[in-house]
């Protein structure tokens, strides 16, 4: 390979049950350049949720894979992801974070677009030749935009397979999240923004890592939760891990006693809430049958949709996406997701659950950041210590949430896209 790259990035040795990842995948600017082209310019990427722009004209600006975009619902009701750059000389036509508008007018020369992206006004248009056709100069949309149950994705590859087929087995797990509501889920107002001086793939691994939960978050699980009245003997993480196809994976953990507003009661919420949460559960059983209801309400899940969407349906539901600005730096956007019909009182419980674990002031996220930055610093030894080991549970018939199958699934897909080959190179581990 070019630039003195190792002969393989991933060692996938089924025979001996060993899986290794080369640490230059976390440090090498050349790898990041390949990822931008072969991963982020190809795969379906989460752009936002339809509930963030409920009414015609509503818009939000953000970055998707480094590109400034406008997530907007047009007057025609259709959700679009417009690339935020004037087709004239390039200025961002929308310079606000969010709002409601009929038009986007570029402040530079006043070219004006409607909220469907069509160019509807060019001052002094008579100065242009006959060949100038403003119908061809609308704001450019992401080449592909598709939604699944409110989750809006884009792909910058016009030939990408359709979203539902891309989601493969992840669809069933998105359904488990969406089925928590009869009226649809919504993003709760507010975006937590945080950064990490670590490679983006470290956060992928960490977001679906059952093995780290007790060591890294010992206090949360062994002191904070027991303080809220949870019996310590219930405190176990005994779930399973599953490959969902196309690099997607999930860990599912039954009955972790951190309380789930839909619908797993904890003592901290008081006796008065117990009947209400139980009734919510019974309603799910009536709608979906006992097994599906149990999976919706009593099983938490950490879901990776390849490459960079995490939906962690745990003590609260968080939707998290992130993009590398450098091999060792990412910025993360995280939202809370909830049933639209949730009562104000339960919304408060949900936000408490969210904030006591998640975000830059939470009781868990900052410690994850610290660990991932510690990994990244450790990788400065990459010349002498080349490989990370991700073999845990590799030969187990039914892998556990505390195994590393889910990371192997991610890395196999990553390796296929980066190297352009189907299976990862198999060789004896060093």
């Amino acid at each position, binding site marked *: 390979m070019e630039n003195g790259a190792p002969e393989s990035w991933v060692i996938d040795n089924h025979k001996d049950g060993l899986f290794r990842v080369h640490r230059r995948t976390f440090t090498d600017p050349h790898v990041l350049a390949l990822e931008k082209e072969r991963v982020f310019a190809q795969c379906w990427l989460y752009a936002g949720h339809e509930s963030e722009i409920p009414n015609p004209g509503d818009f939000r600006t953000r970055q998707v894979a480094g590109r400034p975009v406008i997530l907007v619902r047009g007057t025609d009701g259709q959700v679009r992801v417009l690339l935020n750059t004037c087709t004239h000389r390039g200025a961002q036509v929308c310079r606000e*974070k969010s709002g409601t508008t009929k038009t986007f007018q570029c402040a530079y020369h006043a070219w004006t677009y409607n909220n469907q992206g069509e160019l509807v006004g060019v001052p002094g248009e008579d100065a242009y030749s006959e060949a100038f056709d403003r119908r061809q100069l609308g704001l450019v949309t992401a080449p592909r935009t598709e939604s699944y149950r409110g989750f809006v994705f884009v792909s910058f590859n016009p030939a990408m397979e359709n979203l539902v087929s891309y989601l493969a087995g992840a669809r069933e797990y998105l359904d488990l999240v969406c089925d928590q509501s009869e009226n649809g889920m919504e993003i709760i107002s*507010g975006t*937590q923004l945080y950064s990490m001086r670590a490679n983006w793939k470290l956060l992928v691994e960490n977001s679906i890592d059952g093995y780290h939960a007790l060591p890294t978050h010992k206090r949360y699980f062994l*002191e904070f939760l027991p303080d809220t009245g949870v019996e310590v003997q219930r405190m176990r993480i005994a779930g399973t891990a599953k490959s969902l196809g196309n690099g997607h994976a999930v860990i599912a953990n039954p009955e972790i006693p951190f309380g789930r507003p839909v619908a797993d009661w904890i003592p901290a919420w008081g006796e008065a809430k117990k009947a209400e949460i139980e009734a919510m559960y019974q309603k799910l059983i009536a709608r979906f049958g006992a097994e599906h209801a149990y999976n919706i309400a009593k099983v938490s899940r950490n879901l990776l949709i390849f490459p960079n969407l995490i939906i962690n349906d745990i003590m609260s539901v968080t939707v998290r996406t992130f993009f590398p600005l450098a091999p060792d730096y990412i910025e993360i956007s995280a939202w809370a997701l909830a049933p639209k019909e949730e009562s104000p009182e339960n919304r408060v419980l949900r936000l*408490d659950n969210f904030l*006591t674990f998640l975000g*830059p002031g939470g009781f868990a996220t*900052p*410690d994850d*950041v610290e660990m991932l930055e510690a990994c990244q610093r450790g990788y400065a030894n990459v010349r002498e210590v080349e490989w990370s080991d991700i073999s845990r549970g590799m030969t187990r018939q039914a892998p556990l949430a505390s195994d590393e199958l889910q990371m192997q699934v991610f890395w196999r897909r990553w390796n296929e896209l980066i190297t352009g080959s189907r299976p990862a190179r198999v060789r004896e581990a060093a």
Partner: protein
Amino acid sequence: MPVDHHQIENFLYREARLMDEHAYDEWLSLWAEDLLYWVPCNEDDIDPQRHVSIIYDTRPFLEDRIERLKSGVAYAQEPKSRLRRVVSNIEIEEGDNGEVTVYSNFNLTELRRSRQDTFAGRTIHKLRPQGASFKITYKKVLLVNNDEVIDNLTFLI
């Protein structure tokens, strides 16, 4: 009894020093039983019961925040940040029963792992007289960067 501005300023300076020096128990002792400690996210004026915050602590959560910081396993503060802050632009609004609302600005320098960061913001304290001093019933911190990426807000602000 007229409000003693000098005493209130000293209270704020003391609180700042306790935060800077990670004197967690002493800092917690400044708070009233019925407390609210709030750092809004994205905007200064949001409804914290309908919008995600960065921190929104009632007493049990603030007590746990302090226990966590004292535990030795809050890795985001092991090692701890070196902190020094300046509190200034103090304005005092007198309320009923000797309660006061105090507006102030702060500028905080944080050093951790060879990297120096600056945080700045406005703080709104509600103080209730108790004995010869006050207890904090409410503290809202309006970070200048509350709508930007923040990498670690584990120390006390």
